[in-house]
């Protein structure tokens, strides 16, 4: 569906995309994950032929993409990062207008617009102007404008920024539904949990480069840390912490704010050993948490920095 090879995009001396490669299969929900400024939106804009690029090749649907490939553009939907609608048109008129850029037949367009309004749940707001809508409803309108013409390939560029949890869930459910209906989705976000919940494959980007690509489970195997153990302890002497750090499966253990946090090796299990040490040293403890590694752990370990830098 999408083949991007050796894409280089420079803004003066800044390299926004550094020999970027991407391969997305038909029917996937592909997540582009990266901190702000990592090159996600630039990559999408290049794929959409909005931006010039210095080097590389972009193929969509097996054919080279260019600004005048209207036949390819007709099969693509875009949900912009910022809400891009006309403030003077109502919800219905906005969707009808943007759908009209793809579909000339009036009767068919009316049906598509009605379906899009149903899909994003804006039936009660059909005659509302955008300024009367809440942030979440505006985002839904933004989505409806991008997908009303039923595209085969849809780019979602951070569609849930500044959206309340209810609307966010509705949007994510909608994206899953679009995928189930046959659309291939490219989804960019810096919300780990969204990407983890939604995407079949994920690419982690940083500084315009692909850092790692795979399913979420594959990505988690790429890091050396596995299970993360957290135990509430009133007081933990330094020598006991050293003993815990000496356990074979422990990568790192720290004590801070009455909490012991220990990261285990991949497939390592150190919880019983830690509890044994605490009991032997008559140290009482409170709640115990054990969680598998998250994408956040993967990202932190791979890039060495927070996702929302």
């Amino acid at each position, binding site marked *: 569906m999408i083949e991007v090879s050796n894409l280089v995009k420079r*803004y003066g001396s800044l390299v926004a995309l550094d020999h970027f490669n991407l391969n997305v299969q038909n029917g996937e929900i592909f997540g582009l994950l990266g901190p702000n400024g990592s090159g996600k939106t630039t990559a999408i*804009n290049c794929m*959409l*032929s*909005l*931006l*010039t690029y210095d080097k590389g090749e972009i193929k969509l649907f097996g054919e080279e993409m260019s*600004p*005048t490939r*209207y*036949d390819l*553009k*007709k099969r*693509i939907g*875009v949900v*912009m990062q*910022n*809400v*891009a*609608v*006309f403030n*003077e*048109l109502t919800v219905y*008129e906005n969707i*009808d*207008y*943007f759908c*009209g*850029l*793809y579909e*000339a037949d*009036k009767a068919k*367009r009316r049906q598509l617009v009605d379906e899009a309004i149903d899909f994003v749940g804006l039936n009660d707001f059909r005659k509302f102007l955008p300024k009367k809508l809440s942030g979440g409803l505006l985002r839904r309108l933004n989505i409806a*404008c*991008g997908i009303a013409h039923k595209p085969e390939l849809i780019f979602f560029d951070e569609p849930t920024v500044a959206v309340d949890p209810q609307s966010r869930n509705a949007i994510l459910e909608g994206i899953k539904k679009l995928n189930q209906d046959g659309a291939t989705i490219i989804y960019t976000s810096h919300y780990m949990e969204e990407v983890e919940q939604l995407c079949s494959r994920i690419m982690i980007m940083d500084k315009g480069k692909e850092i790692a690509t795979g399913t979420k489970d594959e990505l988690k195997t790429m890091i050396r840390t596995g299970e993360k153990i957290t135990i509430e302890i009133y007081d933990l002497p330094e020598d006991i912490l050293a003993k815990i750090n000496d356990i074979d499966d422990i990568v790192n253990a720290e004590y801070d704010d009455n909490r012991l946090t220990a990261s285990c090796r991949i497939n390592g299990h150190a919880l019983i050993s830690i509890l044994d040490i605490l009991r032997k040293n008559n140290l009482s403890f409170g709640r115990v948490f054990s969680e598998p590694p998250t994408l956040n752990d993967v990202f932190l370990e791979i890039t060495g920095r927070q996702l929302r830098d």
Partner: protein
Amino acid sequence: MFWNMYKCKLLRIVRNRYLLIWTFVFPFILSTLFYFTFSSLDADNQFQAIRLGVVNDEAFQNDAMFKNTIEALSAEGDEQMFITSYADRAAVDDMLRDNEISGYIQIVDGSPKLFVKENGLKQTIMKCFLDQYSQTKSSIAAIIKTSPDAVQNISGLFDRREFTKKVSLTKNPQTDRVCYFYALLAMVCFYGGFMGMEIVEELQANLTGVGARRTVSSARRYKLVAADMLAGLTSQFIIMVVLCVYLEFALDVSLGSNIWAVLLICLVGSLAGISFGAMITVSNKLKASTKSAILITVTMIMSFMSGLMVEGINYIIMQKAPVVAWLNPAARIADAFYCLYYFDSYNRYFTNIIILLLMTAVMFSITVVFLRRQRYESI
């Protein structure tokens, strides 16, 4: 697809309050203000009878010739020259001091003598009248003395013959105030530049989100440009026509009698204004507010140079810097309206139209060159 885009653009213009205030409401307010400001302009240029005092003493009563002359010139009608007050010397002095009269005349030693408080146009007219009267009177006296037989023919002395004939080039009366309104119409055409500005912003992916959304769509670029431009032109043309109707029928500003020629200049002027705004917007990377400021400033300069604020400035510029005058599209629009009002021939009118069309073509071509680009260095 095209008509849907066109319809939506029209809707957006109609619902855009900011745009409508500048392009529709503002011109109506300004033209109404012009009407009240300049309504006295023509009246000021008409001759108004001068308030004159005459010392009504025995000498005046005995001078039948002067008395008859003054009464004749004070008779009400189109040719009334004086509004005359007759009183004794003390009373006319008081009237002169209180500015109730511009001057007074007293017969002194058999000759009328003028008394004024200050110098001015009215005083000059009174002086001229007295000089002429005295000259005529002495001529008659000389004729009677030397050739009494010729007395029957002296009526010719009272005739004021003009040896040149005033010929009007037009059936419409000469008036100064229409020029202000024509310059105002030119300014309104160029306020259509705001529409051109908005059209371009909504088409460029590097300026607005909707521009990006439309650029990535499968709609052909030329269709997007054409639909928006046509909608902008339609609304600007309607604004111009409504304003012309308002000027003609509500404010009594004549636009001539050829309605088709008026519509043509409205259409061409609107097109020029929209193309101008589009070109200003598309040709640089300045902030939207800066572009608006440029648009307003240039429009006001062009309107000033076409006579919006100072009457006759357009003629001075035409004499001193004809190239500047011919290259000022606002001046061409104002001049085209002027031609329709004053001239029976359409030569100069069509010259203006052709120049405007050429300038529009250049501005539109520059806009299209920039708008053809769909891929940007940065967004």
